């Protein structure tokens, strides 16, 4: 893998420590100065009858820093607050993980266009696993129905409502490609989106200011914005969550596919790959010479979408 642009989205090593002490004292000063009443301003907008405890937690959440600058202690504190908030809000015991990337792992994805039949099980599994907003029907994955003679999903049909498979059609799945040279990361004015060492491009939802510049910068339409307050029925919420993954989002922030970070860092497959009934989706560690993804890359004819843009996606298409 080409790592030439890795440092782009990453903070210099000495940075967090140096900042921490000044940040801390600043935050302390702020919270002291803050009248309890102004908590309403921060939590405002969600209108419903928030208890004093909920307001207090949200107030503390408001002043937390970017995930990458947090110490493990700070991460634990915010996780405790988020879990408590989920308990107060939905009466649910969610578990928010801050699990670090695994050693010597770089994730990659390959999509078999001769196998996929367009069943959309991947889309459904993704929506459930990642707690995607049901109201706006947010989906990270899109399947395009293609005519023979095409290889560019933009010329395919992204909204097909009929029984599949269809003779003489094939399908191409598109989602965030976790580019090595990601234009979205470069665009973000607050470093709220970056690439993790295992190659996953993530968003710190609490740090995102919602300017949507990353959405404009993405050539693959890989990002989704929460235009309103996202809604997931209580009984359908996936409780095993990750801070950078499927935890509940809020209105006004960007989100995207995270290769199911909450699953993959546990050694599982992303929900889409697991759900696929045709075995079209291959996911694995690019650094492991014995992995299936490496086999595909070495033995199949592979290509990538909009390669001319130099984004270096870690998502390949291949044929049997």
């Amino acid at each position, binding site marked *: 893998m080409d790592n030439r642009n890795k440092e782009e989205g990453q903070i210099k090593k000495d940075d967090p420590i140096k900042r921490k002490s000044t940040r801390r004292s600043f935050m302390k000063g702020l919270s002291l100065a803050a009248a309890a009443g102004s908590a309403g301003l921060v939590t405002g907008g969600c209108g419903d009858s928030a208890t004093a405890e909920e307001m207090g937690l949200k107030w503390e959440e408001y002043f937390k820093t970017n995930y990458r600058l947090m110490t493990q202690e700070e991460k634990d504190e915010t996780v405790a607050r988020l879990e408590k908030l989920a308990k107060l809000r939905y009466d649910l015991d969610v578990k928010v993980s801050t699990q670090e990337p695994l050693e010597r792992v770089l994730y990659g994805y390959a999509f078999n266009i001769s196998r996929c039949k367009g069943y959309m099980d991947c889309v459904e599994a993704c929506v459930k696993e990642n707690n995607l907003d049901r109201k706006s029907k947010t989906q990270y994955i899109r399947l395009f129905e293609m005519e023979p003679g095409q290889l560019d999903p933009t010329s395919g049909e992204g909204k097909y409502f009929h029984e599949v498979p269809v003779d003489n059609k094939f399908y191409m799945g598109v989602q965030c490609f976790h580019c090595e040279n990601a234009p979205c990361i470069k665009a973000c004015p607050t470093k709220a989106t970056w690439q993790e060492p295992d190659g996953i491009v993530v968003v710190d939802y609490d740090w*995102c200011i*919602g300017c949507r510049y990353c959405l404009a910068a993405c050539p693959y339409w890989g990002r989704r914005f929460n235009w309103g307050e996202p809604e997931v029925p209580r009984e359908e919420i996936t409780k095993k969550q990750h801070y950078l993954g499927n935890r509940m989002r809020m209105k006004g922030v960007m989100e995207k596919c995270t290769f199911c970070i909450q699953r993959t860092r546990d050694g599982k497959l992303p929900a889409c790959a697991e759900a696929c009934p045709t075995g079209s989706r291959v996911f694995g560690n690019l650094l492991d010479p014995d992995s299936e993804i490496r086999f595909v890359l070495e033995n199949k004819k592979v290509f990538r979408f909009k390669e001319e843009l130099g984004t270096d996606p870690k998502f390949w298409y291949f044929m049997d």
Partner: protein
Amino acid sequence: MTTSPNKGIAAFLSDCLRWSLTGGPAFRIYLVTLFVVMGVGGVAYFHQFREGLIVTGMSNIVSWGLYISNFTFFVGVAAAAVMLILPAYVYKDKDFHGIVIIGEGVAVGALVMCLMFITVDMGGPLKVWHLIPGIGLFNWPSSILAWDVLVLNGYLALNTLVPLYILWCNYHNREPVGWKYRPFIFLSIFWAVSIHMVTAFLYQGLPARPFWNNPLLGPRFLASAFAAGPAVIMMVLIAIKENTAYQVDGKIFLKLKRIIVVAAVINLIMLFSEVFKEFYTFTHHSLSAQYLFFGLEGHNSLVPWIWTAIFLNILGTLMFAFDPSKGKSSYLVVAATCLFSGIWIEKGFGLIIPGFVPSPMGEVVDYFPSLTEIFITLGILATGALVGTILIRPALQILLRYKDFMARDV
């Protein structure tokens, strides 16, 4: 009414406030109208703040709309103050010297609008502190948006502090000391160009959007700004000439007209060059232009707008180029309005919306701003007009009094 020679900050501020808010019945109606429109905008924004940007017409496909369109256009208006500063200070043009302050007032009003448009477009406006270097995390120099935050705020500071210093001196019947402000004047000339180039780079630097990813975008931004901005300033000057005691020399209008014509012609040449490139060899990347000018797959909401814009652009340019009225106010107002509206459409939503259509996945949708969005936009425009007004009016008073004082002294 005249105050004592030793006037402190409090006297300065209260005098300025008095001069900016007192006026005849027409002025009072104007003020009340602005306040009403601002109030409606405020209520609309409260609604948007509670519900989220879902109350706008934007979507994941057209993810920037009326707000960012207006932002882009008014950056140009702000930058145009340089078209007065440059002749006044570099070419030492005496006529322009007296109206530089008006250009700067217009620039501050426009910048306030720009910053407000950015703020209302944000999903998390309360998290804006994440952008402040030191306590937030500023993705500089990588993100062009970070650059834009810097240059816009810097330009706002320059255009507020320099006139403030000059007015403060004149208020106390003193001549401002050259070395204390001239360096900043020259800095602001470069800075004006930079705010518009950086704003163009915001779009120009995105290979994901072929319609914007075009090296002509930055220069064209400048040309259209230097036509539309002076057109706005000309309208303000006419309003001042007709309604106040402040003398605006007829020569100024001739000179402004010349500036506008040159810039507008360059803008039209570049527009033609872009249109030629898009349509002579029609490629996959020309679909956005096709959507804008002729419609695509049955979606053609922008088509009437862009042709109106081109018509107004050409009409305004011709009116300025061949002026049979020899600088009559009513004629100039019509010409300036044509050019201003034409560029507002073309460089506002005529530039922003087609960048998103078709989407990177080939989808074509139309964008229609919601009522909430329109009210918020109008509210911001009214705020900008108010800011410009309450800055320019006391400035003119101070300059007039200083002129009187000098005349008496000599």
